[in-house]
Structures are given as structure tokens and as C-alpha cells.
């Protein structure tokens, strides 16, 4: 029996539902699962959905978002929503990640429309975090992804970031 797949279409459907309900303004897949679109496959155990909240209050509308996702039949496991058996983190976007959401690529996955961070934004976000694994991710993406170097440079410059020296 093949292992259960990554239910990305279900994740996109949930995010699209939140947007249709007016609970979020926009969303996009970021993090490692987005990076896999541009690199060789590697292990990652959850999906990160970044969203621009419709509620600009302190809670960013997270309680209503979680309530809506539970109504859709998904379960909560600490900070994750379990969708199709796969943990999904829902992260409010701001600054660089908000820009990444707004400029995300529109894709279709198994018939579900979705949005995914551009490779250049993934690199910039990794540069802004700066952990060892982020530096490894940057190196991997520079080696394997088809990058728009002028776009990457513009993003880095706009957010006062630089790539780690090898």
C-alpha cells in the first residue's frame, strides 16, 4: 500500500474557504513544502500557510479562523490544524512574509487553485531568519532553483538583507 500523499489540494481548499468567508484577505504556501517546488524533494513534516488577516486586531482573527476550519471537519492539534492527516500551521504574514503572500504565484494542484511563495521570497525569508538550516536551504535553492536574480536582489535590498557568505 503506498504511503498517504501530502493533501495539498485539501490544504488549498481550506485556505480558499477562509478567503471566501472573508476571514483572510489572501494566503500562500510558504516554508519547506513550498521550497520543495523549486528543489529536490526532502523531508518535511508540516505545511506552513501564511495569511493576511481580515481582522487587524491583536488576535488576527485566529480564533475565528480555527473555528471555521473545525467546521470544515478539520481537527486542532496544539498549533497545527490537521488537514487530511497532515499538520498545517497557519501564520499571520507581515513585512517580508506579507509581501511574499501578495506576490505569490498562482498554481493549481490536483484541480485545486492555490498560491505559493516565489523561490526568491523563500530565500529572502531564510536569510532573515538565519538559522543553520536556513543557510542550508538558501544554498540548496541557489544551486537547484531557476532564480530571477534581479528579483532576488531587489527583495533583499528592499528588506535590508544579504545572503550568507559561503
Amino acid at each position: 500500500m503506498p504511503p498517504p500523499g501530502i493533501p495539498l489540494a485539501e490544504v488549498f481548499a481550506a485556505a480558499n474557504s477562509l478567503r471566501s468567508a472573508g476571514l483572510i484577505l489572501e494566503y500562500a504556501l510558504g516554508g519547506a513544502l513550498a521550497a520543495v517546488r523549486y528543489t529536490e524533494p526532502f523531508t518535511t513534516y508540516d505545511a506552513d500557510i501564511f495569511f493576511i488577516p481580515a481582522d487587524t486586531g491583536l488576535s488576527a482573527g485566529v480564533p475565528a479562523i480555527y473555528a471555521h476550519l473545525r467546521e470544515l471537519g478539520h481537527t486542532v492539534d496544539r498549533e497545527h490544524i490537521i488537514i487530511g492527516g497532515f499538520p498545517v500551521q497557519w501564520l499571520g504574514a507581515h513585512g517580508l512574509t506579507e509581501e511574499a503572500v501578495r506576490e505569490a504565484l498562482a498554481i493549481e494542484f490536483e484541480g485545486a487553485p492555490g498560491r505559493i511563495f516565489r523561490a526568491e521570497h523563500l530565500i529572502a525569508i531564510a536569510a532573515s531568519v538565519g538559522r543553520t538550516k536556513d543557510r542550508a536551504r538558501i544554498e540548496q535553492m541557489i544551486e537547484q532553483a531557476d532564480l530571477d536574480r534581479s528579483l532576488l536582489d531587489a527583495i533583499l535590498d528592499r528588506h535590508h538583507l544579504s545572503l550568507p557568505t559561503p
Partner: protein
Amino acid sequence: MTAEMRRTLARLPYAEKLRRVAELIEFSRRFKAAPVILDIQARPAMLLGSRAIAETETDLS
């Protein structure tokens, strides 16, 4: 794996790559869940052997 092989993998369709991610997750979970196999058959013999040595070398006279 060579850099060229990694770049080839990077050009796979996204759906295929996510299928492989799922396989990697399954593999890592099975690997973590694998029981630790102790060499229990050797241990009694080792203990007996140690005891036998102690009995022959101990002279309480």
C-alpha cells in the same frame, strides 16, 4: 548524489516531488519506530562465562 542529479530531481513535477516527500516521511517514521534489537542470546552466555571464570579463579582456601 551529484549536483547534476539533484538538479534533475529539482525539475520533477511538483506532484511527483510531494509524492516522494510522503515516502520520505513514511520511511523516517518506520526507521524511528524500529525496535532496538538486543543480542539477548549472547548475554546469558557472557554472564555464565564471567561467573565460570570467577569460580575457577577464586580460591577461598
